[in-house]
């Protein structure tokens, strides 16, 4: 058994888990944060993407113990109160989701992409950057549009702040 202490969405949490427990299992089964999904068992689909110390990671591919001491953000922690993150808002605005199952991972990847690369991002970059996220519903068309729009909006916001 391993004792894992970490910050999840700003809250300090501790759990005692089997050594083999995956981070996604800790989040879903122990902490009840079921917004992070599991879509595969080979680290391919990206439904489980979260932020670990500010970087996008596949939480199915890390042991819970590896997150000891880290700060984790999940989809549940992205909005500030009732105020959606611009990427969340853009997914709705551009119909970037259908069944919603890939969506949390898509949004977390998109936020990371924009954080890393800045904006506005073009279609080719976005499509390339999404290679670790699979969606079966949308054909990606509107996901790409949503990220394009959000990246432009966020670039505008950060310029305005400067």
């Amino acid at each position, binding site marked *: 058994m391993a004792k894992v202490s970490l910050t999840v969405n700003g809250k300090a949490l501790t759990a005692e888990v089997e050594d083999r427990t995956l981070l996604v299992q800790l989040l879903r089964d122990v902490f009840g944060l079921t*917004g992070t999904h599991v879509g595969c068992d*080979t680290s391919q689909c990206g439904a489980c993407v979260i932020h670990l110390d500010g970087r996008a990671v596949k939480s199915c591919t890390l042991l819970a113990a590896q997150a000891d001491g880290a700060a984790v953000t999940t989809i549940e922690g992205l909005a500030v109160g009732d105020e959606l993150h611009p990427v*969340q808002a853009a997914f*709705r605005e551009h119909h970037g989701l*259908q069944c*919603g*199952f890939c969506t949390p991972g898509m949004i977390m990847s998109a936020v990371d992409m924009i954080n890393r690369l800045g904006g506005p991002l073009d279609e080719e970059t976005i499509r390339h950057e999404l290679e670790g996220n699979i969606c079966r519903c949308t054909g*990606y068309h509107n996901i*790409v549009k949503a990220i394009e729009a959000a990246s432009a909006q966020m670039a505008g916001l950060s310029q305005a702040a400067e």
Partner: protein
Amino acid sequence: MGVEGIGARVLRKEDKRFITGRGRYTDDMAPSKTAQAVFVRSPHAHARIVAIDTSRAKAAPGVIDVLTGADLAADKIGGLICGWMIHSKDGTPMKAGAHPAIARDVARHVGDQVAIVVAETKNQARDAAELVDVTYEELPAVVDLARATDPDAPQIHPEAPRNIIYEWSLGDAAATDAALARAAHLVTLDIANNRLVPNAIEPRSAIGSYDPAEEHFTLYNTSQNPHVARLVLSAFVGIAPEHKLRVVAPDVGGGFGSKIFIYPEETACLWASKRIGGRPVKWTADRSESFMVDAHGRDHLTHAQMAFDADHRIIGFKVATRANIGAYMSTFSSCVPTYLYATLLSGQYDIPAIYCEVDAIYTNTAPVDAYRGAGRPEATYLVERMMETAARELGVDPAELRRKNFIRTFPHQTPVIMAYDAGDYDATLDAALAAADYAGFGARKAEAARRGKLRGIGLSCYIEACGIAPSAAVGSLGAGVGLWESAEVRVNPVGTVEVLTGSHAHGQGHETTFAQLVNDRLGIGIDKIAIVHGDTDKVQFGMGTYGSRSGAVGMSAIVKALDKVEAKAKKIAAHLLEADESDIVIEDGKLKVAGTDREKSFLEVALAAYTGHSLPAGMEPGLKEGAFYDPTNFTFPAGTYVCEVEIDPGTGKTEIVQFVAADDFGKIINPMIVEGQVHGGIAQGIGQALLEEAVYDRESGQLMTGSYMDYAMPRADDLPSFRLMTTETICPGNPLGMKGCGEAGAIGSPPAVINAITDALGIRDIAMPATPARVWEAYRAAAPAMAAE
């Protein structure tokens, strides 16, 4: 059109919970004391189960029980069924083998379940599953259609000699043969439709629980049709009578057909819960399991001949298809390659004689059933590959050959059952050709050639039959159920509305589109309207969502219920306003006396209905109405897709440089949602054409493409952005004039892509998926001929 009414691009009401991580999918639920289940699955494609020793597993930490097919049989739990009876040409009924929820004597495909382990935690169940000791006697296996009916092929079910389930036919053989005999030109093609794995991103999941006090079962399940699941689990599997079984399908993460069917795992979870005394039993598939045991799609081999007269008109079409059914007959497996396939072989064309034979064949593979489009993609692929090939052989423009043969008068009775009710195929063809600048293709091809690229263009003029379907008609064709839909509209005393529907949403946006319909009729804001679905305890009965039926059938039922609500509301308003009922009109959420300023708000009328203080004499209080709607015909969405590709002859890589889709879906409720459906469908169709294929090893019967590392799912950078447009002919068969849009993309796109690739390479055919390796080889084989031109 109101801002929230029919035709408006209303943002989806359901999105908020999904984008904030608050969706409620089956695997998200954790009822108290839930035990976790893991299945022991056959590693062999075909094997006799000689013995199962569960003793070590039962003694493992945390294990509650380990159950086998023998236990299932002892409890008299029935087998799973195929709900559509097909008769062979000779009149004999289809030869279906038994389909127990847990295999008892023989495992028939890799992944076939042979035991269920129930433990405190999933890891404990997994560990214990490793300790279940199954002694197998391996048997020879057959996975491919070409060999499965050989006299020396392994026999999979004793009921089906030579693995043939049925040999079915449709159409007029003599007339078709006569047409072929007098043809001025005959096009012959052998075509395979590749086997696909649906791969909804949410894996299947089930939580079965039994309440011993009430002798009542509850199933939470990733289902597209919870009522049908309850019906089958009650009436056939024999879990419990319907009033003792509640099935809930909460948020469901995509289906594409694969979540229609009643699978072994949910049956086993329900039964196991009772066996262990009522603790809920939960199973969620690993993706590897999804690959092995979710029903696959397609898998046809077809030989076809199309006859043309000297004027290039089609005079006959003869088709012989072998359909792989897999190791067991899944819920609707029998109707997919028959009534959902051969009935669409007329395409958009006036063809006087069609004859089709379909042999359905068992193999040692996962069951094959409906996958997005279900039979109709196979038909369209065949027809549109034939048309393109014919045009090339006849030396005419493929668009013009199609145009020459279009059906132009409606209703049109085809020789294969369907009566097309409305359409304008020239309109979608014209729209697509203009948008794609078809005329300018030659210049683009020449320009690409200068860059060393091979450019090709391909068309596909698809038709599909949706809105499944008039109950009496499908009953006469062998369906075990009716295919109507139900709805209930409940107006609350404060004027808000709940719509209970038998349709089920798993990505389609019903919570928004259905509310738009109510808004359109009653003028109530969509935030005051709730759509309730997916729970057999809440909704009276329903047939679920598949075959693009939720609009044409599900919404039609809501229309009928709304008609009744409106009629009663008008009566109440007339009484309150001391006016004649026939003078009452509904506008902007108000009931008005036409031509006056006298009015009552909808709220006032609703409240009056529930206080009952002042109702017309003899009227029952309340404002709640239900309706069942049985479709009068199929609906016939149709359109033209144009795909343009560039191939790199050095690598064989195909890039889709342009994809245009022009669709006629009849009346559209929410264009944004319709576009999303088409995008997703096209992506799946392009996936079929370029990337995806379920491959079994011919000798061992092992699934070679059992993960996302081996099975190529379309990713964002495999696909282009799409250009969509719609034309409109109103469907006369239902009150809203809708045709359905859920499957068109998956139906129309594969032939467009393959027609473009074969055009670029100057070859007749290439197998799907047209991977870079296949394209490169085809180019190398064709290169001398191309060079000589």
